[in-house]
Each structure stands twice: as structure tokens, then as C-alpha cells.
């Protein structure tokens, strides 16, 4: 495998891993983050 193929693979893997990560974080992270903010809102937070 020459450096040209290696560099092309690097670009492909870079885009691939980031895109997957981005999609997963957006789909699962936004609802999770809204829940965290609601739970910890000082105005509505219950004190134990």
C-alpha cells in the first residue's frame, strides 16, 4: 500500500468516524441534555 492509498484511507476514516459520532451525539445527546438542565434547574430543583 502506497502513501497515496494510505492518505486517502486516512481522509475516509476521518470523515467516517466523525460523521457517525456527530449523528449519534445529536440524536441521543439533545434529549439527554434537556433532561439534565431540567433536573438541575435551581428554580425547580428539589432540595433533599
Amino acid at each position, binding site marked *: 500500500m502506497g502513501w497515496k492509498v494510505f*492518505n*486517502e484511507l486516512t481522509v475516509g476514516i*476521518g470523515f467516517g468516524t*466523525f460523521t457517525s459520532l456527530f449523528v449519534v*451525539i445529536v440524536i441521543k*445527546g439533545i434529549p439527554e*441534555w434537556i433532561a*439534565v438542565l431540567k433536573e*438541575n434547574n435551581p428554580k425547580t430543583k428539589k432540595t433533599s
Partner: protein
Amino acid sequence: MSILPIDYIVMIVYIIFTIWLGVYASKYAGGREEMLVAGRKIGLFGMLATLIATDWCAITMVYMGQSGWAMGISAMFLGWLIFAGYVGAGMFGVGTVWFRRLKILSIPEVMEHRYGKIARALTGFSMVMAFLVTLGVFLQGVAGMFGTFFGVDPRLMIFILLAIAMGYTISGGMWSVILTDQVQFLILGIIIPLATILAIKGAGGWEALYSGVQAARGEVGVNGWTAFGTKTIIYQLVFFFFAAFAYPTTLMRVCSARSVREGYKGFTIGVSSFLSRAIFPAIVGAAAIILFPDLKDGVQAYAMTITKVTPVGLTGVLIAGFMAAFMSTADSYYLTTGSMIPQDIIGPLLPKGKTLSTKQTIITLRLSIVFVALFALYVAYFYKGGLLYWVVKLAEQMFVAGLGISVVFGLWWKKANQWGAVTALVFGLIGCAIPNYVLKMEAWQTGFISFGGALIGMVVVSLLTQKIDRPKTVGSIYREARSLANGMD
């Protein structure tokens, strides 16, 4: 370049929104834990977003863009070195688990748990020294980038950027940083890959970019091994392995996680983004070789390429995105560095039994952030270095060698003791500062001296002082730390 009124509107809306977000988040910052680690309530995906947003900083775009301009497509190879070093460290996982389990508020605190107060204060000192340099260099590089965007004197940009970043860092603490990171992650996640695709297209496509870089830079431009050389490659692998046990911006995100498990998983998954964060800007920088054959200063390579290849109207979104990238990192560094001064340097040096109250900690923290910002301003104005990548990495080397080796030995070698760690920290700091700043040696030489000194110092001094400082086992450290942490709760 031309910035249209619509671009200015996008930027102004974005800045107002960010300031509002900082003010909104400030109501969450009620105590030390809330201020420094967001109360340890961040879930796995929220943590991943903030981890990536912090590491995808504007300065990474600037220095990797500069590396891409200087070394062509070969600069992407650095991404593999960073990735391999982190994956090597992440495979053990123990570092992140240990840090999160100890419920620490700053990285040097781990050193106190394992080695004592002197080691903690020394760690805090070496980290603050390193970050004072890197923050100034960050400010200088990013101001150059925005100066290119707006056609404004970079010295004026330094003031503007510093004022924006400090505003909500001081008011909101880690909640502000993390909340802003979530929004910035969404913007950066689209903008940075898009800018890379536009740069490849602007250079005439991948084949034209590749052959153009090869023609301009020769074999060095496309062959990563030739560009860096075996010695530098080994040095960088070692550096990033130990950096995974020492980088506060990454590890404090782990400490903000809701649970040990989520912290560990977030760190392990998050390192996969380190490959792309090096690749994207390196490609944009390499495109500058084709687009601006007469360019003399690679610091401007990223900004100039972006402004040339971006379609009219999208510029405002791009600049707002990079503003986001800058703020996301700057706030995190100011907060982390500022928090070390009261927590890790002043705190351990106080008389026995005395501690700073919550109010004193927050006041000292805010004053420390102001001090850090002023020092960064000084460095940004007067510092002149070479390739920014090495300026940043060699500044970080001042603490990575001593701290990384102390953490790794502290986990797996029960004979590692306080005096070994103190020697490792001192040798790591001096072993980097003198070869780099005084003798102006090569990066790999500085790295080997610093790591070698720290390693020998740790082993030899620990073995020589076993009688005065008895060995501890990691198990006892866990139990001790847990009881301490529970007691503090």
C-alpha cells in the same frame, strides 16, 4: 474577501446568543463542584459533545492549518499519532476511572491523593506555567485568523476576543462552559467538515490537491514518515500516551460526568474524534499551497483558504463557527488554569487544618482568571515562535512528562512515592524548559530529555527513599480516596 451585511447579522446574533447562554448558565454555578465540574451531572452524550467542542478549538485549526501548509498532506499523519497515543492510554482506562472515582476538582488533586501536598502544588505550578504560554499563543494565532477574516489589526482582535471569552467564563464556571460547548458542538460539527470539503473542491479536487502538494513540497508533502522522521514519531506517540493521563481540559470533562462508567465510556469514544480534528485543518492548510503559492506565513493559511473557497453568504456562519471554536476552548482553558491557582497552588500551601471557604475559592478563582488573561495578553503581544504546533506541544511538555509518568507509576508501581514524583515533576519541567527555551534544541530531543529525566528521577529517587516514605498500594489509595470523597460530600 467581502463580508456582506447578512454575515454581520449572523455573527452579532450568535455573539448575543452566546452571552445570553453564559448568563443563563451562571445560575447553575452555586458552589465549588457546580463551578468547577458542573456538579458531576453531565451524561455520556453531553460529555462527548463538550469533549469534542473543546478539542476542536480554533487554534487547532490555525496550527494544524499551518502544519498542512508547511508539510502538505503529510500533516494528517499527526492525527494518527494523537489517536494511537490516546487509544494506547485509553485501553488501560484506569487513568480516567481513577480520576473520576476520586471526585477531584482539578487534575493536580490526584497527585495529592497519591503523593501528598508538595507534589500537588508542584503539579499545579508546572501546569499553570505551561498554560500561560499556550493561552497567549492561542490568543495570538486566533487573533491572526480573525484579523484575516475582518481585515483588522490582529492586536486589536486580541483584546476583543479576550473580552468575549472572559465575560461568561467568569460569570458561569463549568456550567457555562459546558452549556456553550453543546451549542458550539452543533455548529462546529457541520462547519469544519464542510470547510474541508470546500477547500478540496477549491483546490481543484482531491487528485489536483494531491499532485499539486507533491509538486510543491516533494515526497515530504505526501509521506508522513519522511516528513516527521522516526525519532519525532516515537516522541509524539510517547507524548500523547502520557498526555492522556495529564491533559486537564479532556480529563476535567471526564470528572464532570454523572458516573465513573459514563466518564470512562465518553473518554474512550471521544478519542476517535482526535483523528479527524487533525485531518480536517491539515487538508485546508495543504490547499493553501495550491491556492496561494506566494503565501509566506502559514499561520494565515487556514483563514485565507476558507475565505477564498466559501460561497458568498456562508461566511458569517463560518466565522461565527470559528468564534464558537475559539470561545469553547478559551473559556475552558481560562477556567481550568484559573482554578488551579486557588485549588492546587494556594490551597496545599496553607497551614495545616486551614482551607479556603467556598466564597474565598470563587473570589480567588475569578481573580486568577483575570491574572491568567492578562498574562496571556502579554504573551500574545510579545511572543514570537516557530511552527505553532511545536510551540504548543513543547509548552505542554513542561507538565506532561512529570505528571504523566507520576500518574502511570502511581497506578502500577507501588514503590512510587512522594519524592520520586516530586523529582519527576522537577526534571520533566526543567528537562523541557532549558533544552527548548534556552538551548533551542529539536522538539524530539527536548521531549526525550524531559521524559527521560522524569522517568529516571521517578525510579531512582523512589528506590532511594523507600525507608522514609513507605510504598502504598493502589487498592489502599482507592479506599482512602473514596472515604475522603464521601467525607467531603
